[in-house]
Structures are given as structure tokens and as C-alpha cells.
């Protein structure tokens, strides 16, 4: 096989993988800290993408300018939702919490379809491209990848360095002990959920620059978050990064060799195999659930 083509496919996979990592890092945070599988994640991404597109077409606000505000709107909304509603059942078994977030997802999905519609839309920036020999990299994809990586790094920094981040990690490790140390656990839960949704929001904004975005994709996006979380390991930012890049490259190569449907199948098969062989993921630690 042609080397330049292979390099192109792998680079495409890495650019896609950075976005996957960004999608999964918020999902993984919520799962790791709140012990909730947030079925809303895919819809939050699409909602942010829709908002970004609307701001671009209606008000000519550049996606890179609306990125953070859109993320904040989604994050604050989600934090309120967590504080008012989900916190009440956060201790319940997974069947309850998953079903609840699925119910909320159905409401949001339906509202998005009636306020907007399911027509795919994207922000076309046309920033030109870089050509390295036979390898072609569009600037909008490079920019989306870099912003995704920067935001993932920012989240890592918040978790490692800030008081809020240390409190989140403390709650994840031992809820009771954290509560005894004076951390207000319900508030941390709400902030964590908000932070996860913020990451979903910025991802949606970035995705809308690179791919057409539609409400029909909510399930697929959620599926990517599942896979990355399981492959990379739960509750760690580096895990989500490794898992995201691994999935991006796997899908890109799989799609090149066997076609796009087989690539999606490959992702899920990889996840199921890893779940069985190594449920803690590539970078996960045992007992970190």
C-alpha cells in the first residue's frame, strides 16, 4: 500500500481521535465521579453544534468565538439539571440513573427536533489546507483538533491543579471521607456534571466545523463515548485521550480497508473484547469504579 495514503489515513484518524477524546473526557468524568452513565451526552453535543451553526448563520459569530459561551450555556444548564433532578437519585442503581438520563435525553432530542429539525448542518469556514508532499490536511480540521486537545489539557489542569478539581477527585475516591473533610458533595456533583456537559458543548461546536451535525447522530456520538471510555479506562483524562486516539485511528483504517459500516462495527467489537479481557481499560486502575 502507498505510504503517503497510509500516512493520510492515520493522520485523519488522529484528527478524528482528538475530537473523540474530547467527547469522551466529559462522559468519563461524569461516569467516574457520579457513577452515572449519562445518556444525555450525545444530545448535548448535537445541541451545542446546532447553537454554533445558528449563531454563525444568523449572527455571523465565528465558531471559535462562540465555542466557550456555547459550552458554558450547556454546562450551566446541565449543572442545574443535576442539582435539581439527578442528584435525588444519584445513589440509586445503574438501571435507575441510566433510565432517567435516557428519559431526559428523549425530551431534549424531541425538543431539538421540533425547535430546529434533523437536517444535517455545518459551519463552512474554508480556511484552506496544508499540503505535505501527497498528504493534504485541511486547516479547519487541524484547528478543531488543536482546540480539542487544548481543552482536554485544560480539563486535566483543572482536575490536577485547582481546588475544585481536587475536590472532584476527592469525591471520586471516597465520597464519605470527602464529605467529612467539608466538601459539599451535591454541589460537587452538580459542578462535575456541568463540567462534563461543558466539554460536550465545546466538542459539539468543534464538530460542527468539521462534519455536518444532525440529531440523528446523537446515538452514534454516545456510542463513541462508550467505546472510548471502556477502551481507555474510566475516570482518567489520559485514558480518554489514549482511547480517543486509538478509536480514531482504528476507525479511519477500518473505514479505509473495509468501509464505514465495518469500521463502526470494529469499534464496538474492540470495546466488547476489551470489556471482557480487561474491564479496567488500557490505562484504568483496578478498583477505580
Amino acid at each position, binding site marked *: 500500500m502507498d505510504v503517503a495514503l497510509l500516512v493520510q489515513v492515520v493522520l485523519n484518524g488522529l484528527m478524528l481521535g482528538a475530537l473523540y477524546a474530547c467527547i469522551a473526557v466529559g462522559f468519563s468524568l461524569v461516569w467516574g465521579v457520579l457513577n452515572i452513565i449519562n445518556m444525555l451526552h450525545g444530545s448535548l453535543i448535537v445541541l451545542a453544534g446546532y447553537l454554533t451553526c445558528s449563531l454563525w448563520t444568523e449572527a455571523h459569530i465565528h465558531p471559535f468565538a462562540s465555542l466557550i459561551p456555547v459550552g458554558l450555556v450547556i454546562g450551566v444548564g446541565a449543572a442545574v439539571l443535576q442539582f435539581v433532578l439527578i442528584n435525588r*437519585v444519584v445513589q440509586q442503581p445503574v438501571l435507575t440513573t441510566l433510565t432517567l438520563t435516557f*428519559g431526559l435525553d428523549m425530551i431534549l432530542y424531541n425538543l431539538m427536533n421540533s425547535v430546529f429539525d434533523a437536517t444535517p448542518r455545518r459551519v463552512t469556514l474554508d480556511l484552506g489546507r496544508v499540503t505535505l508532499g501527497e498528504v493534504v490536511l485541511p486547516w479547519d480540521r487541524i484547528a478543531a483538533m488543536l482546540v480539542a486537545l487544548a481543552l482536554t489539557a485544560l480539563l486535566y489542569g483543572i482536575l490536577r491543579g485547582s481546588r475544585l478539581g481536587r475536590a472532584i477527585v476527592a469525591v471520586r475516591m471516597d465520597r464519605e471521607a470527602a464529605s467529612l473533610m467539608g466538601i459539599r458533595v451535591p454541589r460537587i456533583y452538580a459542578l462535575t456534571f456541568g463540567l462534563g456537559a461543558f466539554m460536550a458543548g465545546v466538542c459539539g461546536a468543534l464538530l460542527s466545523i468539521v462534519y455536518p451535525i444532525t440529531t440523528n447522530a446523537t446515538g452514534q456520538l454516545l456510542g463513541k463515548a462508550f467505546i472510548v471510555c471502556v477502551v481507555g479506562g474510566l475516570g482518567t483524562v489520559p485514558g480518554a485521550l489514549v482511547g480517543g486516539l486509538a478509536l480514531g485511528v482504528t476507525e479511519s483504517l477500518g473505514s479505509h480497508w473495509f468501509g464505514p459500516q465495518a469500521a463502526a462495527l470494529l469499534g464496538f467489537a474492540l470495546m466488547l473484547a476489551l470489556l471482557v479481557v480487561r474491564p479496567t481499560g488500557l490505562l484504568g486502575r483496578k478498583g477505580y469504579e
Partner: protein
Amino acid sequence: MASHWRRIGIGLWLLGVAAAPLSGDNYVIKIATFVAFYGALALSWNFIGGYAGYPSFATAAFVGLGSYAGALCQNAGVPMVLSWGLAAGVTAIAAAALGFVVLRLRGHYFAIGSIALVEILSLIASWWSGLTGGGEGLNVTILPGGPVFIARFFLYAMLAIVVLALVATVLVERGRLGFGLRCIAQNEDAAEMVGVPTTLYKVLAFVLSGVFCGAAGAAYASWVAYIAPTDAFSILLTVKVPVMVLLGGPGTVFGPLLGSSALVLLEETVWARFLEFHQAILGAVIVALIFFLPGGLLGLAGRVRKSA
């Protein structure tokens, strides 16, 4: 719930569904068939989700597998009812094999793994277009005999599957398997320690939760005479069925029947008028169920009786 109340409830339910043709209205018969279809699925889910306490979202995987297996058998010339039986067998074998893999997982990982089964089978069905017709779907031979006969035939076929699932539920509940599964639901490690063969029992529960779904899926495929990957392996279905059981009362015999018929009837009477907000209303029902009816309708009946 006292056992005579339970028997009366189940008897009334079966009579009500069986009496639908008396109305002479094909729409009523169709609703009753749906009530029976979902009743069978809810009873099936109850084995793994209710008794064993495993948060399974694999229902659509079994339904889809059964409908494809049944449709393919039927199109290959196997008589219809026999092909449903074959579909149930295929689903049972697949459930045993897949169960052996995913039942090693617990809690959140099991939930995700079971959703992955639905996704994987759905992707295979759209990918393997030589066998399944891919995304365009598969036509199934239509039963001759005219619409009135067909409507009644499939109503009683679904009802027969419900009765089989009910018999299985009662047998499991009274036997060692039911006792073992309830132990697993409470504390799997302790159950293992006192000698409950946990792996075997979990796989059995998974097979039971698959086999009737497979039969019902195959019957459904013959009824509507057309299946496609997105309908057969619908994520909505896979969540709706556990919701029905939660609505009725998990881990009971009558709860799944009560919950599934309540949701189907609610769907048809109330929110068929708001088609555009169909999903949002179902979502709101789910949210309300979790906050206001944590023990399901049967739990509510128990609470009312206690306070009276």
C-alpha cells in the same frame, strides 16, 4: 401482593387480551396484539433484570435476532410457526454464548456491554446485506387468509407466547433458580460463597430473557411482513421494555404485564394525539416514574393498602 389478587390480575389480563376480537374492531385487535407483544418482552426482561437484578438493555438484540432468524427461515420455505420455534432456538443459543461473555461484567459495565450487543447486531444486519437485505430491509412472506383472519391469528399467537413466558416465570419463581437469582440480585459474592452456581444461573436467566423475545420478534416479523435493522434493533425498544417492568413492579409475575399494558394503552390513548411530541412525552413518563413511582404500580398498590 397477595397471591389471590395476583391470580385475579393475571386472569383478567389474559381474558381482556383474548376478548379483543369480540369488539369486531381491527384497531382494538391490533392494540391487544401490541399489548401481548410487549407483555412477552417485559416478562422476558424480568428474568434477568427483575429477578437477577442485572441492568440488561439487550432486549432489542434478542427481538432483532429473532425477527431476522424467523424471517430468513420463513423465506427459505420453513412453515411459519416452525420458523418461530427455530428463531427462539437461535436466540437462546446466541443468548447463552453472549451471556457467557457479558455476564462476567457487573453494574455499569454490564449495562454498556448489553447496549453494545444491540449495536453490534444492528450493524451486522445492515452490513451483511447479502443475507439480510442490509439497510433496505427484508420482506417476509405474508400469511394468506385476509386481514380479519391475520389480525386474530397474530393476536392469539402473541398471547400463546405470553402464556409460555408466564408459565416459565411461575416455574422459575417457585424453583431453585428463582431463589438463586434473588440471592444474586441481593449480593452476588455472598450467593457464590454459599454455593449458588452464579454463572450458570445468570446465563440461564439471560437465555430465558432471550428465548421468548426471539419468538415474539419472529412472530412480529411475520405479522408486519417487513423488517429493517433500525426497527428490529431499536434502542428505544431496548429501554422501553425495562421501563415497562419498572412501571409495573420488577421481580414479580404480574408487574411486567401490568406495566407493559399500561404503557401501550397510555401510548395509544393519550399521546397518539401529540405525535410530534411522542418521544418527549415518553421521556417525561420515565422521569415521573423514577421520581414518583419507585416501586412501580404494584408497589403503589402495596403502599395504599398499608396506609389504609
